C-alpha cells in the first residue's frame, strides 16, 4: 500500500479489555501509528468517516443493532479484522447461547429485560465475512503486531494451527498438569507463545480450538484429571461454545 492505510477501530459487546490492552504496546504503538492513519476510534476520536482500508472490530454480536452496525462496517472497509475472543468466537458472552434466553435477559437486564432484545452472542464471522482474526482474551498482543505488520506490508499473516502445548514446550515450561491443574493447551490454537502456562496458569482455551480438535479425547483427559463429565464440558465451552455446539463460524 503506497499511501498509509486508513484504519478504523470499533467495539461491540466485549468488555473493552482488548482496546485497553492495545494501548499497552507503548513503544510499539508509536511504530504502528507511523504506518497508518487512524480515522475512527470509538475511544479516542469522534469524527465519523465513510471509508477505511482496515477495520478492527472487537466484541461479539448480541443485539439486532450490532448486526446492523457490523454490516455497515463491512460495507465501508476493505479488510475486516476481528479482535479478541468475543469477536472471533463469540467469547464468554456466548455462554448464554446454551442457557435459555429468558434467563439471560433476566440476569443481564433485570426488570428491564423486555426493553432490550438480545440475540445469542455471535462471532462476527457468523454474520459477515471476516478477513483476519486476532484471537485471545484479551487479544494476543504479539499476534496483533504480526498481523498488523503483515497488513501494512500488504501480506497475509501466518496462522498457526497447532496446539498451545507446542509453544509451551518450546519454552520448556513445567506443564501445569504436573502441579495438579488442568489445562486446555492441548486443543487450543497456539500463537500466544503459551502466555498463561508460562506464568504457571492453565490455558482456558480463549484462542479457540485447533482444526479438527479431538474434543472427546480432551474431555477424557479432563475427566482423568478429576473433573466430572459435566465440568469438563463446561470448561471446554467457556470460550468455545459456538464452535462446539456448531453455531456457524
Amino acid at each position: 500500500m503506497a499511501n498509509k492505510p486508513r484504519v478504523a477501530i470499533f467495539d461491540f459487546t466485549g468488555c473493552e479489555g482488548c482496546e485497553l490492552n492495545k494501548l499497552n504496546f507503548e513503544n510499539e504503538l508509536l511504530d504502528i501509528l507511523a504506518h497508518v492513519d487512524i480515522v475512527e476510534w470509538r475511544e479516542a476520536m469522534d469524527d465519523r468517516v465513510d471509508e477505511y482500508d482496515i477495520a478492527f472490530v472487537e466484541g461479539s454480536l448480541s443485539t439486532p443493532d450490532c448486526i446492523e452496525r457490523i454490516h455497515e462496517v463491512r460495507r465501508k472497509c476493505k479488510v475486516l479484522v476481528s479482535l479478541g475472543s468475543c469477536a472471533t468466537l463469540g467469547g464468554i458472552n456466548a455462554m448464554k447461547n446454551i442457557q435459555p434466553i429468558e434467563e439471560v435477559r433476566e440476569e443481564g437486564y433485570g426488570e428491564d429485560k423486555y426493553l432490550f432484545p438480545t440475540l445469542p452472542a455471535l462471532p462476527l464471522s457468523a454474520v459477515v465475512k471476516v478477513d483476519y482474526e486476532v484471537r485471545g482474551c484479551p487479544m494476543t498482543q504479539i499476534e496483533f503486531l504480526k498481523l498488523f505488520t503483515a497488513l501494512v506490508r500488504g501480506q497475509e499473516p501466518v496462522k498457526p494451527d497447532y496446539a498451545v502445548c507446542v509453544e509451551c514446550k518450546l519454552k520448556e515450561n513445567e506443564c501445569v498438569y504436573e502441579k495438579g491443574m488442568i489445562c486446555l493447551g492441548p486443543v487450543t490454537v497456539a500463537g500466544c507463545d503459551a502466555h498463561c502456562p508460562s506464568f504457571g496458569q492453565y490455558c482456558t482455551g480463549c484462542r479457540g480450538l485447533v482444526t479438527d480438535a479431538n474434543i472427546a479425547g480432551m474431555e477424557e483427559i479432563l475427566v482423568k484429571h478429576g473433573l466430572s463429565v459435566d465440568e469438563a464440558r463446561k470448561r471446554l465451552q467457556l470460550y468455545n461454545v459456538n464452535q462446539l455446539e456448531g453455531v456457524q463460524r
Partner: protein
Amino acid sequence: MKDLYFPVMAEITGVKQLSPMEKLFEITLPGGVDLEHDPGQFVELSLFGVGEAPFSVSSSPTRKGTFELGIRNVGMLTDVLHRMEAGEKVGIRGPFGSGFNVDDFKGKDVMIVAGGIGLVPVRSLINYVLDNRDDFGRLIILYGSKTDKDLLFTDELQQWTDDPKVEYHVTVDSGSDDWTGNTGVITTMIPGLDLDLENTKCVIVGPPIMYRFVLLSLNSKGMPEENIYMSLERRMKCGVGKCGHCQINSSYVCQDGPVYHYPDLADLQEAL
C-alpha cells in the same frame, strides 16, 4: 561446510501470465550461471519476511542462462510473488531432490500423463526430450485440465499440436462454449492409445487424487509397473533431508523424490 540454509539472491528476469491462477517466472542466477538441474528437480524460493516454498523447475536444463518456475497462486508466499515484477530479487536454494533419470528414457517412447498444474514440473522433461529429439522414440503427451481457461503454456500446447513428432492429446473436465476439444477426465484418453508397452516409459504428474485412477487405467492397459514414474507433492520445507516435513514413510521426498520409480513406491503406504 556449506551452509544449507542460505539462499543465493537471484533476479526475476521475466514474468508471464499462464492462466488466471498461474504465472511463469524466469529467474536468472548471479552471473547468469546455469542452475544445473535435472528435469523434475525443485528449488526453494524465498522472499524475506514472507518465507520459503518449494517449486519444481519448469524449464529444461538444455535451455541455458535462466530457468523458469510456473507458480500457482495458492498461498501467502505465492500471493506476494504474483505481485512481483521483472527486476526484483528472490532467494534461491537448490536444485534439490531426485529428478528424472533421462538416460533411462533414451531410445524409448516417452508418454507423459499430466493433470492440471502437474504440467509445470513435467514440462522440463518434455522440453528436454524436444531438445534432444533424436535420442528418444515417440513423445506422447496426455494433458487434462479443469477447464480450457486453465490450460497452461498455451503457445507451447499449440506447438505440440502442430509438431508431427509430438502426439499431443488434451481434455478438460468442463469446457466453455468455444471449446471444441475433448471433455472428460484424463483417464478416458488412455484406452484408445496404441502403445509399444514394453518400450514405453510413462510419467504421471498431477494432483494427488489423479494417480490412483491413472494407475488403474495403465494397469488394465497392461503397462509394466517398472515403466512407470511419478512426481509427488509434499511439504518440502528445508529441501535437504533434515526438517522431516516431506516424509512419506521412511522416504524423504526432498531427497529420494519428488520423482519416484513406481516399483519403489510399493513399500511406501503413505505415498498414494
